[in-house]
């Protein structure tokens, strides 16, 4: 190893250390920004060193420089523009798009390497362990690329969010999977040529589409998290292909973190990952669990009564769910909360781990509406406090508040829930008695302490805030 290579290698290691420490600093909102900056500095160092290596090799043609510089500039501008303009509610789509391009780039690195070797002097077949990494990189990268595009399309509403199936879909899926795995194994044996590469690439691209299409929009966040882990793994494989330590480290880090997040999220939704990928849950029919209280009526409340209950409470716990984000009512809920606080009411937010459209999404949406994070309480922290709350205000959250989860024998049994039913009074803001994702009745709504406020989240909160102002002064 020349001194130059040694320095490059050491700087790559330093960059990897920055990534690890950056992620570590994410464990508190106080240090998280510093973590992101540290991670970005590591990234800049790694890229600068790579540029230095390109200059040092001295084999890059003028065209090569133009291609790399223009390509990087175009990509940076596109990334910068989308990052600056994206709405916080659209965050999952953006993450998915970044997964797509990251996976695509990792796939391209392997394709380039394979084609270079296969068309090189003497036309050898790429063999040995590099062949294994190449096959895995092309496979995972290509599946991630198309899968992420479809997932983003579904969240954005470009592709229908409903599970899409067509006659013979399963057969197509199996055929693609067999082709994909078969050609990948062939490639690993080191006897494959360009044709096999093309078969692998096309079948993996196709499989990415047919894998995500039948999955419902509500499951997309888990899919995105899974694809994030895939991208990380693909990047690590690209690192093996070109023998670059920083790609291996960074890719493995992301692969591990993505896997954990996926697992946490699937657990919080009471689903297993295979179950989500295979699909076919929550068709909207209330099969199990409907027996309890289905015949009982619910009580409704108007804005004035709700306002009085809230304004004269000591402690109010707000339980925001996806409905709040869908109604874009983050600012309205913060306005109402500030109004109540000015009347001496203690207001905190109870955040279920999967509230919103991706893990932790609700925290970002509320942070955007200027809610300080000290008021955002996680499930384990807030559950013991519900019995002391005078009012629990549930806005657009459903299954995560259903006490039926504590009993065995129904669709959501065992799912971690917020103990909203233990509050002294409960006001539920909801557009209709429609079912949540699990497609079953929520027993909370039939509780004698519960009153329902049927309205869109935004309207309801505006009406309540207005009523608090008029009635309580």
């Amino acid at each position: 190893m020349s001194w130059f290579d040694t320095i490059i290698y050491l700087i790559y290691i330093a960059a990897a250390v920055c990534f690890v420490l950056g992620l570590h600093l994410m464990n508190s909102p106080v240090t998280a920004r510093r973590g992101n900056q540290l991670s970005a500095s590591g990234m800049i160092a790694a890229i600068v060193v790579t540029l230095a290596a390109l200059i040092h090799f001295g084999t890059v043609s003028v065209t090569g420089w133009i291609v790399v510089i223009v390509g990087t500039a175009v990509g940076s501008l596109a990334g910068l523009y989308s990052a600056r303009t994206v709405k916080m509610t659209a965050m999952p789509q953006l993450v998915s798009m970044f997964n797509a391009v990251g996976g695509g780039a990792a796939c391209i690195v392997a394709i380039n390497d394979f084609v270079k070797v296969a068309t090189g002097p003497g036309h050898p077949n790429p063999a040995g362990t590099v062949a294994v990494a190449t096959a895995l990189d092309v496979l995972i990268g290509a599946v991630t690329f198309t899968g992420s595009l479809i997932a983003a399309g579904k969240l954005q509403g470009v592709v229908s969010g409903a599970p899409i199936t067509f006659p013979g879909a399963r057969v197509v899926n199996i055929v693609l999977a067999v082709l994909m795995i078969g050609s990948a194994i062939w490639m690993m044996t080191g006897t494959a040529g360009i044709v096999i590469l093309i078969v692998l690439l096309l079948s993996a691209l196709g499989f990415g589409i047919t894998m995500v299409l039948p999955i419902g929009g509500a499951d997309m966040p888990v899919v995105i998290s899974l694809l994030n882990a895939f991208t990380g793994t693909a990047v690590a494989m690209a690192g093996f292909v070109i023998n670059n330590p920083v790609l291996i480290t960074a890719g493995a880090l992301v692969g591990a973190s993505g896997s954990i997040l996926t697992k946490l999220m699937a657990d919080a939704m009471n689903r297993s990952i295979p179950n989500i990928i295979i699909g076919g849950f929550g068709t909207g029919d209330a099969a199990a669990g409907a027996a309890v209280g289905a015949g009982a009526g619910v009580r409704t409340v108007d804005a004035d009564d709700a306002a009085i209950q809230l304004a004269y409470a000591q402690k109010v716990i707000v339980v925001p769910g996806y409905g709040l984000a869908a109604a874009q009512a983050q600012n309205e809920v913060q306005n109402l909360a500030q109004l109540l606080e000015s009347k001496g009411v203690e207001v905190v937010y109870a955040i279920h781990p999967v509230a919103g459209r991706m893990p932790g999404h609700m925290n970002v949406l509320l942070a955007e509406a200027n809610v300080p994070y000290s008021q955002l309480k996680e499930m384990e922290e807030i559950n013991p406090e519900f019995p002391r709350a005078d009012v629990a205000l549930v806005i657009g959250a459903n299954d995560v508040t259903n006490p039926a989860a504590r009993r065995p024998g129904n669709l959501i049994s065992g799912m971690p829930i917020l103990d909203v039913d233990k509050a002294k009074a409960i006001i539920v803001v909801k557009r209709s008695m429609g079912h949540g994702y699990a497609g079953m009745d929520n027993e909370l709504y039939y509780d004698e302490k519960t009153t329902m406020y049927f309205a869109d989240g935004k309207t309801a909160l505006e009406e309540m805030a207005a009523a608090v102002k008029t009635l309580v002064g």
Partner: protein
Amino acid sequence: MSQALLADITIFVLSLLVGFEVISKVPSMLHTPLMSAANSIHGIVLAGAMLIAVTANNAFAYTLAFIGAAFAAANVMGGYVVTGRMLKMFRKKPELPDATAAAADGQVGAKVSGSVKS
């Protein structure tokens, strides 16, 4: 198996373990920024995409280098900027006048949240 490959595999396995260990401590409050931060880190593939240029000598390789660099650069740049934007919003204490809060939010935050508040 070569020495270099064994070293690479060691790095891979240890990094996986570090990843599990580091991520498990992050509170669910920060999971969205965390996913976004992890997302930007896999943009390191930009280094790989740039290295394609070293041996590129035909239109096919140049095209790959171009697409790879553009894709990876979008991943890196967008990922870090959007993570920073999200983390900036997490405040400990509410800021008193809404105007300052919106201004501190930076131009984009102000556009999104300011429209309702102003």
